[in-house]
């Protein structure tokens, strides 16, 4: 078993008076792919967003419990959420390029960190795009608007943009849900590559996808973590009846 990268302990989250996550405790290992599955509204995306404190932006959210990243409680008052997000990157469901050039999109994070050296930026942009398997497709039009890319390309560019900040953890919120099968395959291939160096947590609707790309799978239902374990085990011999019903497609 690899080292634990993220550990949550009794994590409970309220939207106003409504409980969205109920006492979630789980350990996510380093440099593996962990998939969150479950029906819509089960809390898997909400949970993902607690891992880099994106829920901070919603005023009505209240959180109790702990999220430990490398043993540090990220909800500690002393923790800087801005720097945390540099270490815990995120790729969103809908590709969300800035209306800037491809180059400027990828260079955004390094620039935020105060890097203005042109050569160094160009280097980071190139390596990031290469890591995201999109360099060959865009190298001749780095200064064109990122809005002109196809959906799949946009999403891979967004991954490159996240990589440019050099995070250790990448959270992916249904990254391929809006893409065609070919683009989806490319993203999955990319995830497979990335896990060599990054800890990846992916929320997905698509169970085949979870089965293909993940090492571990967590099944959420109604804000509760029902079952969490090796992907192969979850998909073949789940312990809980609920999990089995979901996996076999009886609901959701």
């Amino acid at each position, binding site marked *: 078993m690899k080292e634990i990268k993220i550990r949550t302990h009794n994590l409970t989250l309220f939207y106003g008076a409504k409980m969205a996550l109920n006492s979630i405790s789980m350990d996510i290992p380093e440099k593996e792919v962990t998939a969150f599955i479950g029906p819509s509204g089960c809390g898997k995306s909400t949970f993902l967003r607690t891992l880099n404190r994106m829920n901070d932006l919603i005023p009505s959210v209240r959180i109790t419990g702990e999220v430990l*990243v*490398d*043993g*540090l409680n*990220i909800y500690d*008052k*002393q*923790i*800087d959420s*801005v*720097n*945390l997000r*540099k*270490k815990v990157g995120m790729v969103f469901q809908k590709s969300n390029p800035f209306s800037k050039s491809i180059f400027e999109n990828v260079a955004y994070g*390094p620039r935020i*960190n*105060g*890097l203005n050296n042109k050569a*160094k930026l160009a280097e980071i942009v190139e390596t990031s795009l290469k890591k995201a398997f999109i360099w060959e497709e865009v190298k001749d039009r780095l200064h064109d608007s990122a809005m002109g890319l196809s959906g799949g390309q946009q999403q891979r560019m967004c991954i490159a943009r996240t990589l440019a*900040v*050099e995070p*250790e953890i990448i959270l992916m919120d249904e990254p391929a849900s809006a893409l065609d099968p070919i683009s989806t395959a490319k993203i999955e291939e990319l995830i497979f590559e990335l896990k060599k160096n990054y800890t990846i947590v992916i929320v997905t609707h698509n169970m085949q996808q979870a089965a293909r790309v993940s090492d571990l799978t967590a099944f959420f239902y109604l804000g509760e973590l029902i079952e969490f374990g090796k992907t192969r085990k979850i998909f073949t011999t789940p312990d809980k009846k609920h999990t089995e019903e979901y996996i076999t497609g009886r609901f959701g």
Partner: protein
Amino acid sequence: MDNPKETSGFVFSKESLKKKFRLSEFLSEKIITGVAFLSIAIIVLIFFFVFRESLPIFSQQKAVVKVEHAEKQEQYGVAADSTQTNSSGQEQYGVTSNDTMMIEDQAREVDTVVHGSDRATAKSLLGKQWLPVSDNPRYGLIPLFVGTLKITLIAILFAAPIAILAALFSAAFAPYWLREIIKPAIELLAGFPSVVIGFFALMVMASFFQNLFGYDGRLNAFVGGVAMALAAIPIIFTITEDALTAVPKTYTEASLALGATRWQTALFVTLPAATPGIFAAILLGIGRIFGETMIALMATGNAAMIGINPFESVRTLAATIGAEMAEVVFGDTHYNVLFLIGALLFVFTFSLNAVAEFYVKGKLVKRFQGKQS
């Protein structure tokens, strides 16, 4: 700033994730919040300064210095123009004649040289004569109020039905493409400067109506009122249109499903459901007309008369300020009275807006959320 080298290789540690104080973040938030206060500050300042300049009317002790040479008063409009009106930073000072200023010890004068007869008192403000520039100036506001109300009534009688019906057409009957023409067109009317509308009224409408009705005075309350309707129509139209389109679709669909026709639905369902919004639209339209200056100055004839004949000349509150402030002596009673008029106008439009805002919004929310209305 972070050294890029540093960001690349480090692991999570208490140090790297320690809460940082970011000066730019702190300052930007404080500055942005501070600037946002400005809007509130401006309202308060307007209230304060407009009232402040009108206050001397009410205080017996700090009465305004009365001009000694009363016989030259008629000309003091000229005086203000030709002698660069002085200002020594005091709030009040006197002007003795056309070209000589009294910039002596004003404090002493304020206490000694007071002409009681000229002072505007609460009683004289309720007088029926507005004769601010005469040997025996009178500051009766009644004719100005009557004039303003008359104009407002005429204007709103034209503007409200036309604007509301047009909004209904746009919201309920017009095909999409036509609506996309009507709405921007009326927005454009809102952008016409009131001096242009005033000019149009003065040069074109006045003669047209005179020929039509055959009355004597070219410029009167009717011409001014119709011209002001042009200024109020876009406001009433836009707010009414918004209110009509905000009526939930379920309302109209339910009505249509019951076999009502489109016009019945519009008249008996959509329109009543939008009444609070339409009420707000009319209130804001009234506010616009009430405070309109240039059209009143140019198209009403500006004689301060009391009467109900719509074809008589009138002088509105706003026009009185506009016409007389430039010629008045800073700090004298006339000046203070003009500011008092301004303060009244401000309070009035402020109240209209407040009513439109709170009462109407509350009603709408209640209504569309299905609570008791």
